[in-house]
């Protein structure tokens, strides 16, 4: 099983504005870091040639979409929080508004399957409506890839 992760960021200003220029300049190195990270499988790209092109979608111009697939929860976690990506994340308030509702969701997919953005959005809605479950979860309440494991994996790991 592979792990799909979708997260949304609410841009403070249009992506081509001066306010976002520093962020846009970071897209290339940070995306390169993700692509080379252990356990990285796939991410949604708008362009194969322009690394600064952000994903175009129908969910509102202010929403920045990050959508990727990873071999494990640990590999994604290590990329997000245990790489230079953490420093970019620390600066998020310079570029993004605070989100009052859940803005990231993860779920397990069969290896080789590439989920659609519509599926990702549906998983996020599911998380908002039902709370975390094996179908849609967060780091704080994460679930193992094995169907049998219905207990949050995080609680076990923390013991």
């Amino acid at each position: 099983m592979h792990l799909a992760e979708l997260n949304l960021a609410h841009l403070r200003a249009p992506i081509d504005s001066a306010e976002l220029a520093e962020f846009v300049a970071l897209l290339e190195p940070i995306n390169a870091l993700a692509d080379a990270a252990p356990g990285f499988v796939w991410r949604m790209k708008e362009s194969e040639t322009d690394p600064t092109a952000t994903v175009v979608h129908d969910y509102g111009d202010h929403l920045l979409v990050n959508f990727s697939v990873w071999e494990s929860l640990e590999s994604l976690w290590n990329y997000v929080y245990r790489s230079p990506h953490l420093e970019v994340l620390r600066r998020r308030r310079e570029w993004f508004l605070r989100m009052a509702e859940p803005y990231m969701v993860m779920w397990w997919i069969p290896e080789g399957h590439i989920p659609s953005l519509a599926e990702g959005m549906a998983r996020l809605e599911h998380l908002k409506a039902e709370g975390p479950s094996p179908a849609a979860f967060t780091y704080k309440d994460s679930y193992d890839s094995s169907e049998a494991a219905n207990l949050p994996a995080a609680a076990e790991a923390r013991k």
Partner: protein
Amino acid sequence: MSTDDLDALALLNDPVRRSLYEAVAAGGGDVGRGEAAEAAGVSRTLAGHHLDKLVEAGLLESGFRPQEKKGPGSGRPAKVYRRARGERTVSLPPRDYVTLASVLAGVVETLGAEERAEEMARGAGERVGGRHAGEPVERVLRERGYEPYEEGGLLRLRNCPFHVLADEQPLLVCSMNLALCQGLLRGLGGDPARARLDPRPGECCVVLSKTNED
């Protein structure tokens, strides 16, 4: 606190076991029986006996490192030890600050008060540094559980003293930890900019650059 935790920690009261445990922890990864024995100044047989006791108690984990030479005559894979990932806490009388800290971290996030939290951490670090003014930062960090070591001209920190919370709220806790370390440097009379984030798996996310005097 569980009886298991107390029993496990009591094992470390033996000086040989204690130095073997420290040798494995300081290795930062897989440490062979021979290396641990040498560091502790005991025979390989005695080291093996005590290392296995530490594994039994869950303080260390063991595994096998394949021999570099392949094929017949290369011998069995070498048994190696590393520090167990779980942590042991003993508090008498029992206290549970982690649960409270976790709730408070959740409150900071809910309020969007991360910047305030970092400021407070910087102040707390400064006060600690002030109490140790003139002492080398490496020693102050070691006393606070960071396990500093040198690598590539940097002072890296092998252990995250806030691991449980950093797992749960990495962004908040790592940012506060950085602020704490920067405050500590200032309090010690040093340059706070020596501390920056350079996270990698399995360690504290803060590194310190070396000063010119070092």
